């Protein structure tokens, strides 16, 4: 029988009296030998909840107890039995792996004799044995998280709290991390794994789904999926150039609660009790098993509609048969290290091209060279026939760029951010004013117009970032993990806007290791060890990864399979 390790009852927490609660009447039980998923988008209250569990925060009302002890009164006693790995784990980047371990062993008060055994066991477990003398700052994202995990495990905790361990970790390392944590369960440890990736929820034994501080669902993941049974379909047969319009039409129908592009297909979820809507004859619907995100969206009352008002104001980009973005033999060397090797691709007008690859494979370097942030060592990057090296300014004026962490000016108001970006993209006063008004309307920023960008809710930051990058009506849009961490509804809204721009001929290049984002792409280039090891539509990539044991691989499966094959080819 499972024993509860921790219990939270009716926990409510507000950070300031007039803001909505960060946690609103949360109750949950954490059992030993299980992974409890704390799932929700950024700002849902995951970290706040975790910090309550180790007694770093005190609740306004409600009680939190761990191992039968109250977290407020017995915090020091609890901490001896709890391993906590915060989001940005406190690794000392200028210390080596071994020095980090020593430091945490000292902090846990581990005796000398015990230490040697623990170190060996944990280094083996995390496969970091070869890297003990490497500086922590030089480790890849996945390895950092493994080291963080090792440090958290030093005190042999009974409850392990992991705050977003999979952020910044590529799919391969993510799988390894999951496997490692699952092995820990056999010893009776209880694990809390918080994540904003909804697909990870399905791997948990129990899940608490949070959104804006409220519980949307608590229970076994399968229970949420049961509600969605027979309501999720993938539609095939839409013409490649047409699928975005078909999706927009579908989303505008009452029966459809949610829809996204998935490779060449369109995945839709129907409202409860609704029948399949009428649609073009060429489309055929195949029922598929629902995923956690379907359940999440359903709990929130469905996704956004299909209409993007942005489409009405973006001007139609001129037809062109040639490529809009072209990389010719792109190579980048940092000293002896070749980050990108002879990478060539071309992207046509109105196409979404995705760069995928594990951390450190060279996808960011490629991306940066394509938008002019890095100069290639050899080869060239061209935007609409303009070389970024020679005609930099003119080429860059045709680009819109949206960085991962929404690089906005935090202490400038929404209006000031808009007018700044209008200014640097050379809109004159009348154009700038009109563009700012349009953006304010399209993205519904009116009520926040004089609010500092820093204090905007996450979803609005995302909108403002997009508004700033498209207000000069660019021909090309560069997106760097544009929707990581944002809630699925905002993500759908975002991709609706992108889709509507693509329909008008805007060309999009996106880098991501978020498979959902990759599914929106028309074509994907898979970068590994600086080389483009595979490219094609998402479906082609999936098809090429089919093996006997894996008959219908997901994009993530394909990603891993193709990288393993490349690795095998290298060693032969």
């Amino acid at each position, binding site marked *: 029988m499972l024993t509860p390790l921790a219990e939270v009852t009716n926990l409510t927490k507000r950070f300031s009296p007039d803001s909505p609660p960060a946690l609103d009447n949360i109750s949950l039980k954490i059992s030993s030998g299980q992974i409890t998923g704390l799932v929700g988008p950024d700002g849902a209250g995951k970290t706040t909840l975790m910090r309550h569990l180790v007694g770093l925060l005190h609740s306004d009302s409600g009680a939190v107890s761990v191992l039968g002890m109250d977290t407020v009164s017995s915090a020091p006693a609890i901490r001896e039995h709890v391993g906590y790995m915060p989001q940005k784990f406190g690794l000392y980047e200028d210390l080596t792996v071994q020095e980090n371990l020593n430091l945490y062993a000292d902090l846990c008060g581990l005796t000398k004799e015990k230490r040697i055994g623990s170190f060996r066991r944990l280094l083996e477990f995390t496969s970091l044995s070869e890297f003990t003398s490497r500086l922590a700052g030089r480790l890849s994202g996945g390895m950092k998280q493994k080291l963080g995990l090792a440090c958290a495990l030093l005190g042999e905790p009974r409850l392990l709290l992991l705050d977003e361990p999979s952020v910044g970790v590529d799919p391969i390392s993510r799988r390894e991390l999951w496997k490692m944590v699952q092995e820990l369960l056999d010893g009776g440890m209880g694990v809390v794994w918080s994540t904003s990736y909804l697909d990870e929820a399905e791997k948990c034994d129990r899940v608490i789904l949070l959104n804006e501080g409220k519980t949307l669902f608590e229970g076994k993941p399968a229970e949420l999926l049961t509600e969605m049974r027979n309501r999720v379909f993938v539609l095939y047969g839409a013409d490649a150039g047409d699928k975005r319009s078909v999706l927009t039409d579908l989303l505008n129908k009452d029966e459809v609660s949610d829809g996204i592009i998935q490779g060449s297909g369109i995945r839709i979820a129907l409202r409860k009790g609704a029948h399949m809507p009428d649609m073009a004859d060429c489309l055929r619907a195949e029922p598929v098993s629902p995923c956690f995100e379907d359940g999440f969206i359903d709990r929130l009352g469905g996704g956004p509609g299909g209409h993007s008002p942005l489409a009405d104001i973006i001007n139609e980009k001129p037809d062109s048969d040639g490529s809009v973005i072209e990389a010719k033999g792109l190579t980048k060397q940092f000293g002896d290290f070749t980050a990108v090797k002879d990478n060539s691709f071309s992207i046509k007008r109105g196409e979404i091209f995705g760069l995928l690859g594990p951390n450190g494979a060279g996808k960011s370097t490629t991306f940066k060279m394509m938008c002019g942030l890095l100069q290639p060592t050899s080869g060239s990057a061209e935007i609409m026939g303009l070389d970024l090296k020679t005609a930099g300014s003119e080429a860059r004026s045709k680009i819109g760029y949206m960085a991962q962490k929404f690089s906005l000016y935090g*202490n*400038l108001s929404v209006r000031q951010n808009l007018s700044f970006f*209008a200014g*640097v993209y050379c809109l004159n006063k009348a154009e700038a004013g009109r563009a700012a008004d349009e953006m304010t309307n399209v993205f519904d920023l009116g009520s926040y117009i004089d609010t500092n960008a820093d204090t905007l809710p996450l979803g609005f930051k995302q909108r403002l970032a997009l508004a700033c990058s498209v207000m000069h009506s660019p021909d090309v849009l560069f997106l760097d993990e544009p929707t990581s961490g944002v809630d699925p509804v905002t993500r759908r809204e975002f991709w609706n806007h992108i889709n509507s721009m693509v329909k008008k001929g805007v060309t999009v290049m996106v880098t991501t290791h978020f498979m959902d984002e990759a599914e929106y792409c028309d074509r994907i280039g898979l970068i590994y060890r600086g080389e483009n090891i595979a490219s094609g539509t998402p479906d082609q990539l999936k098809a090429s990864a089919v093996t006997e044991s894996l008959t219908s691989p997901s994009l993530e499966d394909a990603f891993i399979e193709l990288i393993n094959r490349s690795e095998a080819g290298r060693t032969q």
Partner: protein
Amino acid sequence: MKRLLRIKALMIKEIHAIWRDPKSRIILIAPLTVQLFLFSFAATLEVKNVALGVYSLDRGKQGYELIQRFAGSETFSRTIFFNNPAEAKKALNEQKIIAVISIPQDFSRDIESGKQGKIQILLDGRKSNASQIVMGYITTVVNTYSEEITSKAGGTVLPAIVSGRNFYNENLIYMWFNVPSLMGILTMVGTLILTSLSVAREREHGTFDQLLVSPLMPWEILVGKTVPPMAVGMTQGSVILFFSYFVFGIPFRGSLVMLYAALFMFALSVTGIGLFISSLAKTQQQAILGAFVFMVPAIALSGFAAPFENMPQWLQGCMQVNPVKHFMIILKGIYLKDMSPANILSNTTPLVVIAAVNLILAGALFRRRLE
């Protein structure tokens, strides 16, 4: 035309970013006002408000007369009498007094019998500068007193006496030296901190990439990032000028136009240094450390804390790259003595060189980030 539009947008953004951030608003206002008043009134090298100890064994008229002259002096706020040398020594040790005048038993008798009277002065060598000044005061008082006695007694007056007269700062008012220097120092502190943070902050927040992918050219970014902090620095300088003239009553004898021309070049050179530091730094923390690494020696060795001429020759050579040193000469020259345009020009030229070198380096470093 398009270029101007872009640069203008960047400048407006910079000013908003400076002004809307409560922290940088404080950096601009608080140190300026606090330091201006603090340094002007409190930090002075003049010796005032010190206590003098007296240990006198002389009961005669001459000893009493001399002590009264010290007690009546403005320099010494208090005169403390001691009955034994140990007490006096203790008070000196505890810094209650700056000096002890010790008058021997036979002081009055010696003078009245036409012999030389002798007194002893004990000074606190820990305060070397103040002690020297106090010793000077005491010598003056004693000399005046001796002269009076000699002439009263019908003796011949000394064959020659020295009478000093100070040019430019006739009464050696310390504020006249201090406040013009502050104009250089405070302007630099504000401007340097602002500029050194500006690129580093954008880099930390990821907004610098956003600037680099915009049509802005590296030199346009440089211009956009140079002008606003310069404007801020010159405004700060003007505030100090206003206070120095209207509140502190420091004379202003030179040309206002020249001062502003020199201030412009000074602000430009400091901005250049700030941007150079900023383009090297990866984080705001590094930038602020870099700014201080430059700022502290730049001020200490500028001639503000110690006379420039007292430094060893090689250090004087090194200090040619210190903009504060050059601006300090210009400031005091213009404020106190109507320095000639040729002189101002020769002291401004190094500023132009410093500004040009640093701005070019900063620009090159912006570009290097793209490679």
